[in-house]
């Protein structure tokens, strides 16, 4: 994959809206996926597809299994049953090279998890340099490109502690982008931020969505899920309880979703 593919204004042909077409192969495919923590069943048979270019929001109460489902996608959690295919790799087989998978699947965490001893630029380029073995000059160009994508071109030489929470989270997003992933996972990335900083992070994610990036987000931002996500998945007690387009949040079919959005909005 070349650098140009993730440039801010991709050609329409590359990233057609998935709702318009029906793509042959989904990037992520859950089939009856199960996951237990000891005796506790966290995922009780999940079915879910994410098409290339699609933005899927996972919502639900704490403990509904949405974060666990997300963490299964990049192999941070192993699935105990069912089939999970990500970027053509059968994660349930247990023979997948996780390092290869993670070059295709980025993740952004609630607590940013930037490397505190490295500058923004070094945070962004560490993995491309060590994993993809790109040169110094190329790394600098790459850092400039992805930091500009998140609006932080002028912060390349700043250390995480010199940045606000919102800026740190945007650097974390840039760090994921620098690997040119096919898919980025967002695990409650705005939950540690105040409303103002939440806005600047969501704006970056929205821009990525418009640029055609495939994304799965666990989020509590209902308005954002409704306006940006192509599909919303409501999880409850380890199952996909209800799913559909963003409008489903305005017209919940189940009592549980009605109660959830009632509390949430």
């Amino acid at each position, binding site marked *: 994959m070349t650098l140009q593919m993730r440039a801010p204004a991709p050609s329409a042909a590359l990233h057609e809206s998935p709702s318009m077409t029906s793509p042959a192969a989904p990037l992520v495919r859950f089939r009856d996926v199960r996951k237990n923590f000891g005796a506790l069943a966290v995922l009780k048979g999940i079915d879910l597809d994410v098409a290339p270019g699609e933005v899927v929001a996972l919502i639900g109460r704490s403990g509904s299994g949405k974060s666990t489902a997300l963490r299964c996608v*990049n192999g*941070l959690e192993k699935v105990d049953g069912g089939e999970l295919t990500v970027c053509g790799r059968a994660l349930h087989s247990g023979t997948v090279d996780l*390092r*290869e998978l*993670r*070059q295709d699947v*980025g*993740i952004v*965490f609630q*607590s940013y*998890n*930037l*490397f*505190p*001893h490295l500058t923004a630029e070094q945070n962004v380029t*560490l*993995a491309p340099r*060590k*994993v993809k073995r790109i040169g110094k000059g190329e790394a600098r160009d790459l850092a400039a490109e992805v930091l500009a994508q998140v609006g932080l071109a002028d912060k390349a030489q700043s250390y995480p*502690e010199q940045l606000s929470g919102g800026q740190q989270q945007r650097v974390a997003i840039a*760090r994921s982008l620098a*690997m040119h992933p096919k898919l980025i996972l967002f695990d409650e990335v705005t939950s540690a931020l105040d409303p103002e900083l939440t806005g600047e992070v969501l704006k970056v994610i929205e821009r990525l969505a418009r640029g055609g990036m495939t994304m799965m987000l666990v989020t509590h931002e209902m308005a954002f899920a409704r306006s940006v996500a192509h599909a919303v998945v409501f999880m409850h007690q380890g199952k996909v309880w209800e799913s559909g387009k963003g409008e489903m949040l305005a017209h919940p079919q189940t009592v549980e979703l009605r109660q959830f959005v009632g509390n949430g909005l």
Partner: protein
Amino acid sequence: MLGLTIEQIAYLFRGAGWTIVLSLLGFVGGTLLGLPVALARSSQSRLARALSGVLVQVVQGIPLPVIMFVVYFGISIGGFDVPALVAAGVAMTLYAGAYLGEIWKGCILAVPRTQWEAGECLALTSTQRFVFVILPQALRIAVPPTVGFLVQIVKNTSYSVVINFFDLTYSAKVINNSTFRPFTVFTIAALIYFAICFPMSLLASRFERRLHRG
């Protein structure tokens, strides 16, 4: 001067020189032993943790002078005649290695687990994660307690007097035996020890402050 001849004072300083040599041996040997101990103590492997734990507990449970005796006479029983410097060096290595290993284990574990996870999610190998993500953060934490422990190493080399290693304490004992001026002689020895240790303590607390300033 102070009732001592220049030669006698020079003799004390020669002893001080060997104190520094033994301290350096202890620190270098302790580092070579302490690093693998720290890695084993903080590793995922239960076996590595247990084995290194035994070493640490044994060394920490035995007084240093006794370790010196055991090493010195233990090697001679095997039929080898070792110089006191070698025996003292081995004993200091064991002592410093066990303590530095524990100190550095704490520094490695003090780096949040989420840092490992972040490195893992960027497709770094476990060695790359340790070298580029964990180690630099652990080193920063490790500098103040390590420099602080150097002071302990210097002071504890004085136990090598039990196996007649010619260090500052031993030379002070010899001069005292010929001059019968214990207060003068041991005060000079004390001042020399202090002159070696105090700058290191200062350095340690300066590193400490820098660390907390961020």
